[in-house]
C-alpha cells in the first residue's frame, strides 16, 4: 500500500481519537487485503496508540487477517446451523484437499482458508464463501467440484 493511499484513509478520521481504530483497520484491510505490522504501526501513530494495543484490538475480531490471502479466499461458516449440517467435516476435507491449515494460506498463495462466525443465512446452511461469492446448501461432492475447477483455473 502506498503512503498516499494510507494517508488518504487516515485523513478521513480525526487524529489521536481511538474511536477511529476499527473503521480505519477495515478500510486498510479492504485496500491491502490483510494487515501488516508496518501498517498497524502507522495507524497506531496516527491515533496515538501503541502498536501492541492496535494488534490486541485487531486480533479480537475474526474479520481481520494478518497475512496475505490466497488468490481464492475461502471462508467456511461455523455457525450453529452450518455446524449441524456438517461444516466441521467440510472444513477437514478442505484442509486436506488444499493442503492448507485453517487460518493460513497455501504455499503457492493460491488458496487461503478461514472459518467465519455465523454469516446470518442459516436457512441456506451450510454456506461457503469464496472471494465474496456465496455457495449455499453446499454438498460435499459439490464443494469438491468447485475446488477442483478453481484449481484448474489457477494452473
Amino acid at each position, binding site marked *: 500500500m502506498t503512503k498516499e493511499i494510507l494517508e488518504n484513509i487516515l485523513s478521513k478520521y480525526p487524529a489521536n481519537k481511538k474511536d477511529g481504530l476499527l473503521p480505519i483497520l477495515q478500510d486498510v484491510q479492504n485496500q491491502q487485503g490483510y494487515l501488516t*505490522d508496518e501498517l*498497524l504501526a502507522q495507524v497506531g501513530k496516527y491515533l496515538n496508540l*501503541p*502498536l*501492541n*494495543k*492496535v*494488534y*490486541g484490538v485487531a*486480533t*479480537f475480531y475474526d474479520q481481520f487477517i*494478518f497475512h496475505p490471502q490466497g488468490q481464492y479466499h475461502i471462508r467456511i461458516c461455523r455457525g450453529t446451523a452450518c455446524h449441524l449440517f456438517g461444516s466441521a467435516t467440510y472444513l477437514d476435507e478442505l484442509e486436506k484437499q488444499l493442503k492448507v491449515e485453517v487460518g493460513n494460506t497455501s504455499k503457492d498463495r493460491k488458496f487461503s482458508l478461514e472459518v467465519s462466525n455465523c454469516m446470518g443465512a442459516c436457512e441456506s446452511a451450510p454456506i461457503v464463501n469464496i472471494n465474496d461469492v456465496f455457495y449455499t446448501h453446499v454438498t460435499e461432492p459439490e464443494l469438491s467440484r468447485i475446488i477442483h475447477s478453481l484449481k484448474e483455473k489457477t494452473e
Partner: protein
Amino acid sequence: MQFDVEINNQPVSAKRGETIKNVLDRIGIRVPTLCYLNGFSPTGGCRMCVVEVDGISELVPSCSHPVTEWMKIKTHSPRVLKARKVLVELLLAGHPDDCLYCERNRNCGLQDLAIEMNVRERKYHGKRQNIQIDRACQSIERDPAKCVLCGRCIRVCDEVIGVAAIDVVGRGSESRIGTSYNKGLNTQTCIKCGQCIMVCPTGALAEKSAMQAVLDALSNPLLFPVIQFSPTVPASIGEDFNIKASKDILNLLRAALKKMGFRQVFDTSMAADLAIMEEAAEFVERFGKHDRIPLLTSCCPSWVRYVEAVKPQLLPNLSTTASPQQMMGRLIKNYIASSAGQRVEKVFVVSVMPCTAKKYEADTDRMKDGISRNVDAVITTRELVRIIRLLGIDFGNLEPEPGDTHYGIRSTAGNLFGISGGHLEGLVRTIHHMMTGQELSTLKISELRGLKGKKEAKIRIGKVTINVAAVSGLANVKALIDDVEAGREDFNIIEVMACPNGCINGGGQKLNADEKSLKSRMKSIYDIDDEEMIRVAHKNPVIIDLYERFLAKPGSEGNRELLHVSRTKEES
C-alpha cells in the same frame, strides 16, 4: 456520605463511592484476587473476589462493585466458596502443573489459591497451551503456559511504565498475553524494566537467570571472579533474611559475597561517584554553552532504551556518561585488574543489581574487541538471595567484613543513586562545587526526596539558579518530555528512573514487597547519607586518586572511551 451496609450479618459503615472490596479491606475481611492491583482501576477480570449480594442473582466482583445503602453482602457463603473453587480449578485446567520445577514455587498467587480453596485433584482437563517460551530478551522470560490472563503486567506496562509492550492478543479460549505479530519482547518497545515480573502472580514472567553462569565462574579455577553490588542491595536484602535494614548489612553482604568465592568485592556506589564527576563536568560544560539542555540522566538502562527506541530525537540531550554498573566493569577490566596483577581475560565481573534491564545493558556494552563484555554476568537481588541459600551461607550469622580500603570507599552521594531523586541530589552537590568551588550550604535537598512520581527543585548555584526534576515511573515522564520537545526550556537537568521510586523498587528486587519495606529501604539509604562523613563524590579519596593517577580531567576527551557512551545513532 456515610451509610450502613450489612456484611456477613454484621452492620458496617461505608461511604458512597467505595467498592465492596474497599470496605472489606478496612474491616479486615480478605477476599482472594489475582488481578486486583492497589492503586489501579479495577478490571474485575479474574472473578476471584466475587461475593454474594442480596437481590442480585449473580455473584458480583467486590473489587469493582460499588457499595450501596443497606446492601447485604456475604463474602464467604457456601455458594461463593464453591464459585471460587471452580474458578481456580478452571484456571488449573490448562496449567502445566510443574510447580516443583517452577521459579515461583511457594511464592505463587495461583498456588496459594489452590491451597486456600483446598483443590486436591485436577477436575477439568483443558487443552494445554502450546505457545513457546519467549526467551529472546536478555532480561525477561515469558512463559505463556503459566499465564492466568489476569492482565496485571499489561496494566503496569501501560499505566506505570507507559510503553505498552504487551497486550491481550486474540479472544476467548485463544486469548493470551503477547506482543504484536508474536515477535517477542526483544523486538518490541519493551524497555526490560521488569515491573511486569513484580506484579505477575504466577511464574509466567521471570528474569532471565544468570545464576548458572555465576556458579560456573565461581567454581572455575582458571577464572578470577569479582563482584560489584548496587547500593540498593544492602538496603533491601535484609528483608529476605529477616534482618532489619541497617549499616551493618553492608558488611554482612560483603562477607557473604567473599564466602561465595568472589576474590574482590566492589561497591557500585564508588563508580556512581565517578559517574557524578563525569556527568557534573558534562553538565557544567553544556550549561555554559547553552548546549543540549536539559541534560537527561543516563544511569537507568530502561530509560536509555526508551529514548533509543521511542524518542531518538532526545538522544543528544541524554548524558554520555556511562552507567555506574558499566563504569565499574570498565574500570575493573581496564585498570583495577591489571594493577592487581590479573590478566584481563581471566577476570569475570559479576554485578548484583535490583534491575532486570541491567542484564540487557551489560549485554550491549562490549570491550574494544567487540566481543568480550565489561560486565560478564548480571544477577538480580532475587538471584543473589537464591545463590546465598544454595551455597549454604547463613547470612545473619556471618562475621561482618569491612570494605577494602582500596576501592571500597564511596561517598554517600553515589550511594543515593538507587532512589528516585538521589542521583540528582548527589549530582547537584558536585555541580555546585565545580561551578563555585564551594559546597552547598545544605547538602540534603528535601524537595527531591519522598514517594512522589515527579519531584522538582530549584538550586541556587552562585549567581545562577538551576531547575531540576526527578521523575520515576516512566509513564510520568511523558508529559514532561513532550513539553521539552515542544520547546520548554526552564529545566536544566531531568533525572529519569523507569521504575516507580527508582531502583529500590526495581524489577529485580524481592517480590511482593509492600510500601512499608519500600520506605524502610529509602530510610536506610538516607540514614547512611546523614551519618557518614564523605557526602560528596568529589571528596571520595578513591575518586581523587583515580583522577590523579589514571584518568584525565573530569569530562575531558581523554575519558571519553573509558567512561562515556556514544549517543549518535551510527555507533549505537
